[in-house]
Structure formats: C-alpha cells, structure tokens
C-alpha cells in the first residue's frame, strides 16, 4: 500500500473525509439510509476483522452478537423499563460476557472446527430468539423504541448516518490503537504461529479470548444501532446468513485491513439494494458474486488494490 495509506493517522483522516464528504453526493434521504447501514455493518465487520484478520481466528457466528445487541435495545425499554442507551451498553456488556464464557472452550479449536463451533453458537442464539416469543415476539420480531439522548430523539436516516459514521470512526481509531499496542503485536504473532507466540511468552489463550470479547462488543453495538435505526428487530438479525454476510464482508474487503471492513460492508450492503431491480434473481446473483470474489480475489479488495498500487503490504 502507498506510504500515505499505511500511516495509521492517514487512514483515520481518509475515513473521516469520506464520512464528511460522502453526503454531498447524496441526492435523497434514501442514500443516507443505505450509507448509514454501510457504516453500521462496517462497525461489526471491523470487530470481526480484528478477530479474523489480525488474530487469525474464524467466526461464522458473529450475527449471534449482532442479535444480542439488537434485542437488548428492544427488550430493555419494552420489558425492563430501561432507557435505550443503557440497554445498548447492557447489551454490549452481555455480549462481552457471553463471548467470554463461550470463547474459552471454543477458541481452543482450529480451522474447520472453530468455524463450525462458532456457526453452531450463532444459530443457537437465533433459535433462542425465535422461540422465546414472550420476550422477543417470536419469528415476527418486535418493535424497537427510538433512541433518546437528553430529550433529543434519534430517528430517520440523516441522524443515524452521522451517529453510525462517527461510531465507526471511533471504532476504527480504537482498533488501530489496539493493533499497534503490545497486545496487538502479541495478537498478530498468534496469527502467524500460535506455537511460536506461546514460546515467546504470549498467553495465547488469554489474548485470543480478549480479542473475541472485543469483536463481540463491536458486533453488539452494531446490532443495537441496526435495531434502533430500523425500529424493528427480527430473529434474522442473528441468523446464519447474517453471520456469513459478516464474515464475507471481512474476507471480501480484506483480512487485516481497517479500510477493508468498510469496503466489504459497502459492497454487501449496496449490492442487494441494486439487485432488487433483478427481483427473482437476487439470491442467485448474490451467491455468484460471493463465489466469484472468494475464488478470484482471495486476498480481498483492499489488499489486492494496495498490491497493484504500491506493491507493499499493509
């Protein structure tokens, strides 16, 4: 990647510039809506990328955490009388706790086994959300009251565009900091070789667990935003396909690339919007695209582009 883009501050400035300048090109509120969704999913993908791209641990069940976050802001205000913001924080804490408990045994696994264990976890969350209809409204889902901060009601596409873009930027800043910290270096060492990292004194199990918890919190916050923004939540939020979509965003954008999370999210959010024109062929084309990218652009878009532009690695 060109030197200008490898500098961590430069990446942040570039992301901020994109977020601020993008709306100038928006002809209607619909574009704000799609862009807001892009940033929300980019946040989740960013967290997952920390896990997959930097620590090298696969998760095909992250929609489970997306679901926990989403249902937290639905159930908190409706059943428990909590304000939305407190529910959001509670959901993130709960996701972190669940990740901590589940992560310990799961992260001992590798390769296919890890992929399948996380996948199983995600589906279990979706099944619980579907079946506990007294709390969650069952398969039809439930409405989500709007977020209120100091009397101001966050609703509509424009406010949510700015909220999600700003949160993504904060998330990216934290992620970049984390990667450059001693913990980050330890985590990247685990990616390259768990054995070597262990020999060098890295507490492999603990670091992996820490990054799993962090990525769960990212996904949970993204899930809460998604629910608050849509005003409705259904078990599909936590479904198998959502998990796959999140993982696809990471792999598509580029493993271990901050910018990649945004690019991957942008493609997978915008594409279905474009494809609605094709009505019946939507699923078919989505499958083709997923396969095509995975086969021909294995390294992901951002690293591949960077390779073409600069020849160096980020």
């Amino acid at each position, binding site marked *: 990647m060109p030197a200008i883009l490898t500098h961590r501050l430069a990446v942040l400035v570039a992301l901020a510039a994109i977020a601020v300048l993008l709306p100038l090109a928006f002809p209607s509120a619909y574009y704000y809506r799609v862009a807001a969704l892009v940033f929300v999913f980019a946040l989740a993908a960013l967290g997952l990328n920390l896990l997959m791209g930097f620590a090298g641990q*696969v998760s095909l069940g992250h929609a489970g955490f997306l679901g926990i976050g989403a249902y937290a802001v639905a159930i908190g205000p409706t059943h428990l009388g909590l304000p939305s913001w407190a529910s959001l924080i509670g959901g993130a804490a709960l996701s972190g706790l669940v990740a901590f408990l589940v992560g310990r045994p799961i992260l001992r696994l590798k390769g296919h086994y890890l*992929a399948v*264990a996380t996948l*199983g976890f995600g589906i*279990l969350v979706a099944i619980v959300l579907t079946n506990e209809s007294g709390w969650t409204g069952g398969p039809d889902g439930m409405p989500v009251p709007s977020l209120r901060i100091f009397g101001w009601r966050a609703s509509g596409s424009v406010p949510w565009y700015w909220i999600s873009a700003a949160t993504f930027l904060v998330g990216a800043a934290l992620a970049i900091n984390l990667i450059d910290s001693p913990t980050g270096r330890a985590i990247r060492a685990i990616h390259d070789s768990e054995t070597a990292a262990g020999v060098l004194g890295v507490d492999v199990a603990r670091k992996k667990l820490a990054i799993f918890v962090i990525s769960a919190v990212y996904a949970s916050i993204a899930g809460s935003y998604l629910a608050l923004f849509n005003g409705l939540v259904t078990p599909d939020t936590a479904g198998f396909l959502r998990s*796959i979509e999140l993982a696809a965003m990471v792999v598509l954008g580029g493993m271990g690339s901050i910018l990649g999370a945004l690019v991957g999210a942008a493609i997978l959010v915008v594409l279905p919007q474009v494809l609605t024109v094709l009505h019946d*062929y939507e699923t*078919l084309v989505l499958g083709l695209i997923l396969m095509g990218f995975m086969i021909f652009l294995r390294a992901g878009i951002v690293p591949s582009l960077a390779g073409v532009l600069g020849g160096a690695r980020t």
Partner: protein
Amino acid sequence: MAEFLQFLFSGLTVGAVYALVALGFTLVYNACDVVNFAQGEFVMLGGMTTVFLALAGVPLPLAALLAVVAAVAVGLMLYRLAIEPARGASAVTLIMITIGASVFLRGLAQTLFDKRFHSLPPWFGSEPIRVGGAAILPQSLVVLAGAAIIVVLLWQFIDRTLVGKAITATAANRLAARLVGINTRRIVALSFAVSAAIGAVAGILVTPITLTSYDAGTLLALKAFAAAMLGGMGSALGAVIGGVALGMLEAFSAGYLSSNYKDAIAFLVILAVLFAMPQGLLGRGKVDRV
C-alpha cells in the same frame, strides 16, 4: 411404549437422511479437505427436480433418474468451476465458496422452480403400518432400506474396486497417491459426483414424508455436518452412526422435551462434541506438525 416406538421410527427415518448427507460430506472432505456446505442443496435438487419433471409428465422413475443425473452434473460443475480454481485457498475461503454455491443453488431453484412446498406420491401408498401401537409410514421403510442399500453399495465400492481403493489412498495421503499414479483430481471430481448422487437419492426418498422446497437444503447441510462431526470427521462409518444418532436425539428430545428446540439439538451436539471430544466418536486423533 407406543410413544417410544413412534419416536424411534421417526428418529431413524430422519437419521437415515442425515446419515446419507453426512456420508456425502465425508467423501468430499476426505478427498480434498473441503467442507461442502452446498451438500444439502443436492438433497433439495434431487427432490425438486423429480417433482417438476413429474409435473411435466415424465414417468416418476425416469424423473428420479434424471434428477440424480442433474444433481451429479451440478456437483461436477461445483468442483470444476468453484473448488478447483480456488485450490490452495484457506479453509475459511473454501467454506465461503461452498456457502456461496449453496446460496446460488437456492436462488437457481427459486427461479427455475418456485417457492412453494412440494411432495411426491409415496411409493407404497400412505396407509400406516401398525407396530406395537406406533404408526409407521411405508415410505419410512423405503427411506431406511434405501439408505441401507446405499451405505452397503458405497462400502463395497470403496472396499472392493480399484477406483474405491484409489479414493481411500487419496484420503490417506494425496501426495503419496499421486506418486503411485492415481489421478487425484479425477478422484476428487468423482467424490463430488458420488456425494451429489447420494444427496439427490436421499432427497427423492424422503420428499414424500418431509416435503421439499427451494430452501430445504441449508439446515439439512448444517445438521448433517453436525452428524459427521459427532461421528468423527473423515470417518464414513462415523458419518452413518452420527447421522442416525442425531436423528434419534432430535426425535426423542422433540417428543419428550420441547419440539420448539428440536432444531437446536444439532448445534448443541456440535458444541458438546467439539468441547468434549473434538475427534468425534470414531475420528482419528490429529497431531499437528509445528
């Protein structure tokens, strides 16, 4: 007792289907280390193609045969167009490719056929057979017999024929297999073809009982994968045992505990197996070279 027998038979029937799909999984996994999430789509294609060919006036046996041929063609194309070009990719990338294939095939079925549920006429009528107070559909027996025949045929094929031995050799050590003159690419293609055929047959057998629709494949693939894992990845016998065991677990827990959480059983099994005995019931322990 009647209740118990009823659950037992329904568990066996569903388990037989899981076993067949898990067997397909194992074949492909052994041949090329790919976890093929599109495996369930072969079951769907088998059922749906038969239904629509029959609707178009093709006699049922011929329709079933053509459906198997179609599934095999799809399996071969999946290998040639999606798996082969991605050789050497990471496990996750390969998983994503097969999931992409699964989504694609579902989309294809949705456009080619429709989004409704379909059934096929049972082979020997729908008059249940009474055994000890439990009612068994004749078609359940067809499924069980069909599954048993397939398992025995496959076992004989792998154990007795030269091609079968080549499959075993490829599974054991790909490089060594190539060195003794086995065309491993052809073996992998064959594995895809056979697993597609098995899936399609399973779909045709079970459609009169469970119905089929364009999206029937995904959950089935995931559950069959749980079954394969329970039995031990890479073990054909394990896949069969795991499939039957999972079917029984589902049937009994749906009967005695809660039918709402029937689908959760498979995934609880995955997690429990991975935590307690990652090599499954019959799998080989794996030692990593550092």
